[in-house]
């Protein structure tokens, strides 16, 4: 019975993240538009864009290999699976025993690896630029992410996301320097990974700065739809991850009823709305950074996460 419920929750979660991801993107765009004094498109616009792309014909470069065609599917699957692993409304999930932070990073890393390969596959100069920049960002963002995982894992004594959420919910750990540093570092990594404004701006095609857009320039039709959906899912994933580790309140735990799980869904939607608003506020108040300062920004994130891990050794109760 428990297993059945867990499986049901797992399927529900997979569908929920898929359904909510474009909505989150639409919400961030709407809030940003309102903040700069425009009306902005409706929140349903990303859904319409995706459907339009799905209906369109795929145009392939003549020298595109099988890899180029396979990557959107691989990337979408990996990121969708990763998003399904993060507990968003309940910790009672069928995949919870495998929902490990390190597995999550591996899934995201392989998605990025394939996208960078695809960027270089057609042999255009833009794709190469995008891939090389993406790898530069990844080389700094991933160690930072791993350091964050290690600090949290030392504190909780587990890398399983469900256990981390349960531990944080139990209130056994108070405010910690390490957690605060890890949170700031995670937000910085999330901004860089999702190509948000100080690092990259996917809404423009400015060759001096584009990273993500440069890699996917050659995609069209349903391939592009999958790539876009994957990046929307990734943004949702990072918000869910931050919410799961640092603010798991309102989440249902094992043993609580269906009503608690439904409440968890509502709370999760509210968290996304708040997160999206904060992101939009941050993005409208800051200017785009030069590509060569990205290293400093992410180096800062890496150092902060390192400091977080170091401070674990002076704080109480490790």
């Amino acid at each position, binding site marked *: 019975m428990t297993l059945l419920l867990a499986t049901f929750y797992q399927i529900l979660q997979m569908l929920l993240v898929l359904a909510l991801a474009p909505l989150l993107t639409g919400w961030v765009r709407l809030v940003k538009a309102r903040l700069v004094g425009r009306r902005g498109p409706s929140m349903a616009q990303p859904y319409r864009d995706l459907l339009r792309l799905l209906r369109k014909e795929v145009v392939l470069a003549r020298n595109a290999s099988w890899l180029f065609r396979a990557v959107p599917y691989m990337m979408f699957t990996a990121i969708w699976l990763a998003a399904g692993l993060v507990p968003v409304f309940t910790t009672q999930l069928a995949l919870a025993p495998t929902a490990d932070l390190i597995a999550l990073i591996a899934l995201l890393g392989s998605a990025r690896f394939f996208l960078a390969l695809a960027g270089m596959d057609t042999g255009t100069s833009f794709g190469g630029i995008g891939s090389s920049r993406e790898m530069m960002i990844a080389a700094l963002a991933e160690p930072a992410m791993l350091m964050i995982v290690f600090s949290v894992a030392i504190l909780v004594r587990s890398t399983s996301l469900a256990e981390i959420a349960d531990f944080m919910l139990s209130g056994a750990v108070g405010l910690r320097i390490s957690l605060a540093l890890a949170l700031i570092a995670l937000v910085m990594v999330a901004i860089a990974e999702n190509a948000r404004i100080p690092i990259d701006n996917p809404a423009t095609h400015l060759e001096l700065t584009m990273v993500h857009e440069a890699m996917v320039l050659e995609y069209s039709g349903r391939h592009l739809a999958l790539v876009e959906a994957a990046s929307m899912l990734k943004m949702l994933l990072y918000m869910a991850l931050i919410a799961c580790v640092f603010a798991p309140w309102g989440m249902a735990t094992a043993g609580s009823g269906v009503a608690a799980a439904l409440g968890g869904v509502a709370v999760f939607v509210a968290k996304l709305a708040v997160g999206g608003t904060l992101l939009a506020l941050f993005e409208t108040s800051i200017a785009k950074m030069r590509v060569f300062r990205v290293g400093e920004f992410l*180096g800062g994130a890496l150092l902060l996460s390192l400091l977080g891990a170091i401070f674990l*050794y002076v704080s109480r109760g490790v």
Partner: protein
Amino acid sequence: MSDLGYDVAHMLGAVVLLMSFALLYQRRLFSLLNVFTMQALALTATAAWQAYSHGEPHLYITALLTLVLKAILIPVALHRIVVKMKIHRTIEPALGIGLTMVAGVSLVTLSILLVLPVTADATALTRENLALSLSVVLLGLLMMISRRNAVSQVVGFMSIENGLILAAVGVAGMPLVVEMSVAFSVMVAFIIFGIFLFHIRERFDTLDMQKIESFRGESD
């Protein structure tokens, strides 16, 4: 279980340390002064929280002194100096931001390694507080070394003093006289710094320490 008094004190101390890192990260003088103000505000909050949670009313005076001197008076005065000398657009990393940050983290590690064995039998709060304030002091020193401009060296000096106050409010039983004297000596030092800055400027036409170093007293 963790208690709130410890946790909040701990977080505020971390904010002060984080602001030290933010100081190292800044390139522009105005943003440097803004971050310095924020550090002073965080320090004020720390002192006030300690006064409240430990029931030591004299720490409120420390908080008030910090607020008035460090968060209002000195930033405003430095701001006016920067405007008056027309150096507000100066971008002056002497050592490269990334390298400075790496050095900063190494210093924090060093201070933790130093504090851990010395305070093996002290409470966690004291240990952390000492580690945090020693880090802030060392980062202030790093700031003074790694910057060329005299104004940012002054800011580095002031942040060293922030670290000292952080240590003072964390350790129970620090007499008020000591804190007062520290605060006022910093005030005096600041005034002297201000006068010096104008004199250096008048004599050498610059506040860049690298240019001043080449003078050996035989100027015309």
